[in-house]
């Protein structure tokens, strides 16, 4: 039954794609939650994560090889390094702008995005870098349906990271503080919560998740370049909006929904792969127009 296999293959592809979107969307939604900023630079943080992971893998591959262990270490290094990069960005660029008009902070975020993007462009001379691993191409075959080991590990890793995050946010002290800050920052200050530290931790985690996605995407697709964060950043933002911006569960859900939609969308003959990206933007605009709060988001009034 080729139709069923095509259907299942689309689900597998959609889950892989959706895992990337979800991991990046989490950063958008968390940062938006605590400082109400749409972090334009987030897609580029993902790109930097891919390059740091690439560098880390080349360093450790001499010792442990470029297999699963090497990649796991590269992902960890990238998450930590880029997590701190996120904190630096927040401290240097966003902290001074928090009381400025919204337009100023948006433009600042755009400027950060461009600095990262063009910094990477200058360092890599704009060329693609081959992200070589020794993960092999093994997998499970069911007739014409093929599920690679890589896809399984990737989706599982994303799931573990998301469960860990959910646990952190719902059970730990800083997770509670994070939720409190997203509701009322001033009240949190009065109650003795170190808001600056909570915001820093949010950037640390959000950027770290994007870095994990970046490194895994590099390994999965096999090449990275300076512009890779642009489109996926937009799509992950779409995912965050679909799920309801500010909602962590929503970001995961939105990521998976968008991944599946896109995977199935390309199966429709009329749309085809050349219109794939237009399809995503059309979804974004439709959701924003008809249900700006997304699936799980709360409505809120904009304060300029």
């Amino acid at each position, binding site marked *: 039954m080729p139709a069923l296999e095509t259907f299942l293959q689309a689900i597998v592809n959609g889950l892989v794609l959706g895992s990337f979107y979800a991991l990046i969307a989490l950063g958008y939604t968390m940062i938006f939650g605590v400082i109400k900023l749409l972090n334009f630079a987030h897609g580029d943080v993902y790109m930097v994560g891919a390059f740091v992971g690439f560098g880390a893998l080349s360093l450790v591959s001499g010792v442990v090889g470029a297999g699963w262990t090497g990649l796991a270490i590269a992902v960890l290094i990238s998450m930590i390094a880029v997590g701190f990069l996120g904190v630096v960005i927040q401290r240097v660029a966003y902290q001074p702008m928090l009381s400025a008009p919204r*337009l100023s902070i948006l433009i600042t975020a755009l400027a950060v995005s461009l*600095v990262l993007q063009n910094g990477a*462009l200058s360092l890599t001379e704009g060329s693609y870098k081959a992200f070589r691993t020794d993960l092999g191409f093994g997998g499970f075959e069911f007739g014409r349906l093929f599920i690679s080991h890589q896809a399984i590990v990737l989706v599982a890793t994303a799931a573990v990271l998301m469960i860990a995050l959910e646990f952190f946010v719902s059970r730990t002290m800083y997770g509670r503080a994070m939720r409190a800050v997203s509701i009322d920052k001033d009240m949190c200050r009065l109650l003795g919560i170190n808001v600056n530290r909570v915001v820093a931790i949010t950037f640390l985690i959000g950027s770290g998740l994007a870095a994990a996605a970046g490194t895994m995407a590099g390994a999965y697709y096999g090449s990275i370049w300076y512009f890779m964060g642009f489109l996926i950043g937009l799509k992950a933002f779409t995912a965050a909006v679909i799920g309801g911006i500010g909602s962590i569960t929503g970001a995961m859900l939105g990521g998976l929904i968008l991944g599946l939609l896109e995977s199935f969308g390309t199966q429709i003959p009329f749309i085809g792969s050349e219109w794939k990206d237009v399809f995503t933007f059309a979804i*974004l605009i439709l959701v924003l127009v008809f249900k700006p709060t997304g699936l799980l988001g709360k409505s809120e009034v904009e304060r300029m």
Partner: protein
Amino acid sequence: MTTSTDRPSNLIDRLYAYFDSPRRQMLLLVGIVLVLAIMPLFMGRYTTTIMTNALLYVVLALGLNIVVGYAGLLDLGYAAFFAVGAYSIGILTVQFDWNFWLAIPPALIAACMAGVIIGGPTLRLRSDYLAIVTLGFGEIVRFGARNLEITGRASGLSNIPEPNLFGYVINSYVDFYYVFLLLAVLAVIASHRLYHSRLGRAWLYVRHDEDAAEAMGINRVRVKLAAYVTGSVFGAIGGIFFSVNLGAISPESFSFEQSVLILMAVILGGMGKIHGVILGAFIIILGPELLRELGELRLLLFAVIMLLIMLMRPSGIWPERRH
């Protein structure tokens, strides 16, 4: 805090203070236009072409300035309007053999419609949503141009005929220099008139306090839409003459990078200020020419400057002084 009565300390601020009065500004502008008008006599082909490009950016940046600077809406897909103007002309003159001048009104109508289509449903949204929707819209237009038959797909449209003005064919680089100089002057006048109009004041109120503006009886969605459509008309006019100047257009001329460069021009010089935006447009085009060896570092340098400006001098290089 310095007040406007303080004597500005450094030379540049004193220079700005000197040009603070509207009359001196007008004289400065007239002087600049006169200098620009005689410049082709002394410039070679290469310099003239670069200056033509700078003047095009003045038009585009002034158009975006209405959206970003006047109405306070962040548009990250401004190149889309530029593309709509250019492609409307390209399609009508190349695919349907229309006369260039007859094709201008449909091109402008197309740009207005694009402004309404994208602005209408989204201007009610949060301002950062608007930014991302405009970005998405810009990409949709570029993808559309790349995938449609009528826009010539990835290779674009070529052999766009040169405009014929009462028997005189506008085709030399000097002709186009003057065309763009005229457009830039018209854009400056239009921007100035709009700024001091009832609508311009409404933009100012909406930008500073949307709720208060609405309480004063300003229909904020309609006012924002007006900014959007006006900006799109400026962009389309730039695109219309850009297409006939080059004679060929392709989707990559209207990339996100293009939108960003125009936005940088607006921000570098100072959002909302005509003279600042003109300065910004010239910096964006002439800067890389003066620093040739920069090459790929050009955008990085601009991005860093943009970040520093936002952090240290948010009102731009040549800010408006409060009276």
